[in-house]
C-alpha cells in the first residue's frame, strides 16, 4: 500500500472566480475566492442553495475548469479530473452492473491490481461497514449504504483531498447523523484532507475544523467569513459553544432563530 499512499495534501484557492456562459452571456457565479486548506484539515463550505458551493468543489476536483485565479493541490495546479482528488457526489452514482466490491475497486489507482487490489477494497468496505455486502448490487442497498459505498470508492483512490458534495443531504436524519460519525472515524483512519460542501449548519460544526461561509455580494458569491470551530473531533453535538456558533452561522445565512436564541441566553 505504500506506493499508493501519498498522504493528505494541501489545497489552495487564489483569487478563484468562475463565470458560466448562459445563452451566450457570461454570468458570474463565484469571485475572489481565497482559501488555504492545510493538509489533513477538514473544511466545511456553507452557503445558500445555488450560491456556487458545488461549482467551487467541482473546480477543486478538476471537473470544472477554473475560470480566473489559480487552484493548486500541494502547490501544483489542479488538472482536468485531478487524480489527487476524489469526489463523492450528492447521489451515490454507483455502476448498477457492478457488485459493491467492483464498484469500490473502480476507485483504486491505476497500478493497483490483483491481491493488493482485493485487500484494499476489503479494507475500505470494512471501514464503511459494508464488508458483508461485497457481492451485492447497488440496487439491493439502501440510500445510506449506497452512499457509504461511494465513500469507500473515493477512499480507495487514496486521495490527497477528499471532496464531498452534500453527500448526506438525501439521507434521513438518523442515517445522516450516523454517516457524520462515520466520516469522523474515516477521516481519522485515512488522515485525508476534506472539503465538505453542505447546507447543514450542524453538520458543518460537527465535522469541520473551519467553516467557510459563502454568500452573494453584488453579482457573484464569495467567501463572507471563515470560522474556526473550537474543540477537537469527535465533538459533542450538545456542546453549548457549538450552539452559539450555530446561531451565529444561521443568522449569517439569514435565518432567525428566536427559540434557540432564547435558550442560549444566559
Amino acid at each position: 500500500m505504500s506506493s499508493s499512499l501519498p498522504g493528505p495534501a494541501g489545497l489552495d484557492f487564489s483569487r478563484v472566480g468562475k463565470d458560466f456562459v448562459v445563452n451566450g452571456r457570461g454570468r458570474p457565479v463565484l469571485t475572489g475566492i481565497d482559501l488555504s486548506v492545510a493538509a489533513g484539515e477538514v473544511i466545511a463550505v456553507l452557503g445558500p442553495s445555488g450560491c456556487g458551493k458545488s461549482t467551487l468543489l467541482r473546480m477543486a476536483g478538476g471537473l470544472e475548469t477554473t475560470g480566473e485565479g489559480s487552484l493548486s493541490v500541494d502547490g501544483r495546479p489542479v488538472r482536468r479530473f485531478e487524480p489527487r482528488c476524489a469526489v463523492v457526489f450528492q447521489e451515490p452514482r454507483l455502476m448498477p452492473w457492478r457488485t459493491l466490491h467492483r464498484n469500490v475497486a473502480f476507485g483504486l489507482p491505476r497500478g493497483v491490481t490483483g491481491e493488493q487490489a482485493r485487500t484494499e477494497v476489503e479494507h475500505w468496505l470494512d471501514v464503511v461497514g459494508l464488508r458483508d455486502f461485497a457481492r451485492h448490487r447497488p440496487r439491493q442497498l439502501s440510500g445510506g449504504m449506497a452512499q457509504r459505498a461511494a465513500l469507500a470508492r473515493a477512499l480507495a483512490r487514496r486521495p490527497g483531498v477528499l471532496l464531498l458534495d452534500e453527500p448526506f443531504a438525501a439521507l434521513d436524519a438518523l442515517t445522516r447523523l450516523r454517516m457524520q460519525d462515520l466520516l469522523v472515524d474515516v477521516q481519522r483512519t485515512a488522515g485525508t484532507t476534506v472539503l465538505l460542501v453542505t447546507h447543514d449548519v450542524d453538520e458543518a460544526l460537527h465535522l469541520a475544523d473551519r467553516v467557510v461561509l459563502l454568500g452573494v455580494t453584488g453579482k457573484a458569491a464569495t467567501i463572507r467569513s471563515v470560522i474556526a470551530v473550537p474543540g477537537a473531533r469527535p465533538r459533542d453535538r450538545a456542546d453549548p459553544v457549538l450552539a452559539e456558533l450555530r446561531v451565529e452561522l444561521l443568522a449569517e445565512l439569514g435565518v432567525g432563530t428566536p427559540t434557540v436564541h432564547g435558550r442560549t441566553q444566559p
Partner: protein
Amino acid sequence: MSVPRGALGIVVPLALLGSWQLLAGSGVYSEAQLPPPGEVVAAFGELAGRGELWHHLAISTQRVLIGFAFGAGGGLALGALVGLSRAANAALSPTIQALRAVPSLAWVPLLLLWLGIGETPKIVLVAIGAFFPVYSTVSAALAHVDPQLVEVGRAYGRSGVRLIGTVLFPAATPSILSGLRLGLAQGWLFLVAAELIASSMGLGFLLIDSQNTGRTDVMLLAIVLLAALGKLSDTLLGLAGWRLLAARR
C-alpha cells in the same frame, strides 16, 4: 413459477391448432385453401423423407446467420462510432437515416444487378435488414448513457478506450442486446423477401414454389417452420445475452 408460465405459453398455439382443425373440417374452405394440420405434418414427413427439407432449412439458416453476423457487426461498429462521437454523428447520421427509409424490397433489383443471383445478394439483403435496428439501438444507447456515471468515470481517471470499456459499453449493454435481437428478427424478414424473389432454395423459395404447384400444405409448413426458426434463434440469442448480463460482476 416458470413451469406454469411456460405451460401457459403453449395454450394459445394449441387453441390455434384446434381451431385450425375445426375450421378445416367445417367445409367453409376447400382442402386446397386450408388443409388440416395433419396434412401439413404429412408434407413435413414427405419433404423430410426426400431430404429436401433439410436443404431448405440449412440454406435459409446459413443465409440469416452470415448476413446477421455482417449486418450486426456493421451496426455495432457504426452505431458505436455515431453514438460516441458527435462529429461522426453529425456527419453520418442523416445519410444513414435516409438509407434506412428505403423499403427493403427496393434494394432487390439493384442487388441482383450488381451481385448476380448467387448467395451474395441474399446475404447482403439480410445484412441490410439486420444492420439498421442494431445501428439505431447501439448509437442511441451509447449517446444516452447517464452523464452522471460518465462523469464518475472521468473523475476516477477513465478516458478514451478505458472510459468506453468501463462505463459506456457496460451501461449500454442491455439496449445493445435488445438491438441485436431486433436485428436478427429483421434479418429473417429480409431473408424471406430475398428468397421469394430470386432463389431456387430456402424457405422463401418453398413458399413461392408451393404457390406455383398449388401445395397449400407445403406453404403452411414453410410458414410454421419460419415461425419456429425465428423463435428458436431469438430464444438462443436472448439466452446468450441473459448469461452475459448475469455473468458480469
